């Protein structure tokens, strides 16, 4: 919706200290959950449960980057309810309003959009756009919190973690969280009849890649900033138009010819094309390769920049 300077604090409990409640839950929650579900691990071939867990632990220890991911996961375990509203519930409400409500009007009038019912057309669009929007917010305020307000990133870089580990680990966590929300969204969309093809499962990685292609450079930028004053402006004049005009709710071909190229260079348009190609099972190999290459290039460029800005910010 809208982002204000003082709203800064809000997403997912970052920002100025929120105080009550948060400290009450102890750190072992995730450990208990892991222990409570040995059945899941046991069914995975013949690996004893404890060995799987050991392997995960080894993996985390051997890769400092995943330490940062673990930290974010532990915070999420305590704040996931709040993030569910923006990450999952909001896109589902959009799906209901646009796909079912407005979709009824569209289908009555024009029959279909590019041969698709409006629900089928808009579901992958909302999937990718919501992932991008939620990743954008996460690449702004929480990063500012890490480098300035609460300085948790400084604390992390006082350990064997390099600044690029802090940045990379955070992006990995973002990908995990986005994938969870996108999967849940896709299941609901499929139940409503919005996902005609089984290839639709690939819409999840498409949405995640599109979101990271925008969030990786954005997080790099946030780490270089001293104030969050530009953040709501970025949400309003970059993220919001991208959300609304990147082929999400109507085809980019409908845009005036002069504006169309602007949509083509947004990561979101590529993600929407991929996701829609997946849910409708109608995308050629060449097109997939092109879109994937574009998104990969954005992520790589972001990673290069992020390593620099995080390095500079956390060097002192």
């Amino acid at each position, binding site marked *: 919706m809208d982002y204000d300077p003082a709203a800064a604090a809000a997403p997912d409990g970052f920002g100025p200290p929120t105080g009550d409640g948060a400290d009450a839950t102890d750190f072992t929650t995730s450990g208990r959950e892991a222990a409570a579900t040995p059945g899941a691990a046991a069914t995975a071939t013949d690996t004893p449960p404890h060995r799987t867990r050991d392997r995960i632990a080894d993996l985390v220890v051997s890769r400092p980057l995943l330490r940062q991911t673990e930290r974010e996961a532990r915070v999420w375990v305590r704040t996931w309810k709040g993030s569910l509203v923006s990450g999952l519930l909001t896109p589902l409400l959009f799906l209901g309003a646009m796909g079912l409500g407005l979709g009824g009007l*569209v289908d009555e009038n024009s029959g279909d959009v590019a041969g698709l019912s409006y629900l089928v057309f808009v579901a992958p669009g909302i999937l990718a756009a919501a992932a991008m929007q939620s990743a954008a917010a996460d690449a702004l305020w929480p990063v500012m919190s890490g480098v300035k307000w609460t300085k948790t990133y400084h604390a992390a870089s006082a350990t064997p973690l390099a600044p690029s580990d802090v940045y990379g680990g955070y992006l990995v966590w973002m990908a995990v969280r986005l994938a969870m929300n996108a999967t849940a969204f896709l299941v609901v969309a499929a139940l409503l009849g919005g996902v005609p093809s089984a290839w639709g499962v690939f819409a999840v990685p498409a949405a995640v890649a599109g979101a990271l292609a925008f969030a990786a450079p954005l997080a790099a930028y946030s780490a270089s900033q001293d104030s969050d004053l530009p953040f709501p402006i970025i949400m309003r004049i970059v993220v919001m138009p991208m959300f609304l005009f990147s082929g999400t709710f109507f085809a980019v071909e409908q845009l005036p010819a002069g504006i169309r190229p602007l949509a083509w260079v947004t990561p979101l348009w590529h993600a929407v094309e991929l996701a829609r190609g997946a849910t409708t099972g109608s995308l050629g190999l060449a097109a997939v390769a092109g879109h994937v290459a574009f998104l990969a290039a954005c992520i790589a460029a972001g990673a290069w920049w992020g390593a620099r800005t995080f390095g500079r910010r956390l060097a002192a």
Partner: protein
Amino acid sequence: MTAIALVGTKRTLRVVERNVRSYARMWPAFLTGFLEPIFYLFSIGIGVGELVGDLPGPGGHPVSYELFVAPAMLATSAMNGTVFDTTFNFFFKYKYAKTFDGMLATPLGVADIARGELAWALLRGTIYVAGFLLTMIALDLVESWWALLALPAAALIGFAFAGAGLGLTTYMRSFTDFAYVGLAITPLFLFSATFFPLSEYPGALAWFVRISPLYQGVAIERALVLGDVSWSLIGHAAYLAAMGVFGLRLATRRLGFLLQP
């Protein structure tokens, strides 16, 4: 008497002045606030509107989809413009910046603070609405002279949401609780006959929409912009006025309880 109760006294204006001065340093954040409903008007109203075509309007005349959506975005603009100042920003000032404790050390009282914050939010929201209304006029999306009343009507919508925002925010304990604001605003934005008419909702849901607050505003603005005015608008207006007055009273009482125990 009522005018003073609502608009307040000179002391109320001091609170407004404080906010004006504070925002003078953040004018880009202020200015970009009115963009969101305009983007929605272009994307859904005009973009998706091409796919929707015309809808049945007042008296059976067809109404283009963008003309259907525009007044709803006007009402939304009034809601958005006031809700964020009276929830997030109000809470930040009350709990973290301790702005109100500072104010109470002056001759200002809690009633002045509540009215001043409300007046400021209303001022901000009305500026956004005026910008949106000018956009509508530029796009030729105003059908009737009744639209002259669209701005005061939007101020009434803003008053209702500002009052409710202040009142409910006094019950918030931490920023985590503000997930509820999104939880309330998003469904109102999407399901108040904003993007599709009441007839598209299943029966029970339609009644739910009818009693929801933003729907009152959408109904008023749509009637004014399309020139389809009837006495029922008085009912919608009374609903919004009552909501604002109740919220403001609640906020004043709660602030007294919280800041001057």
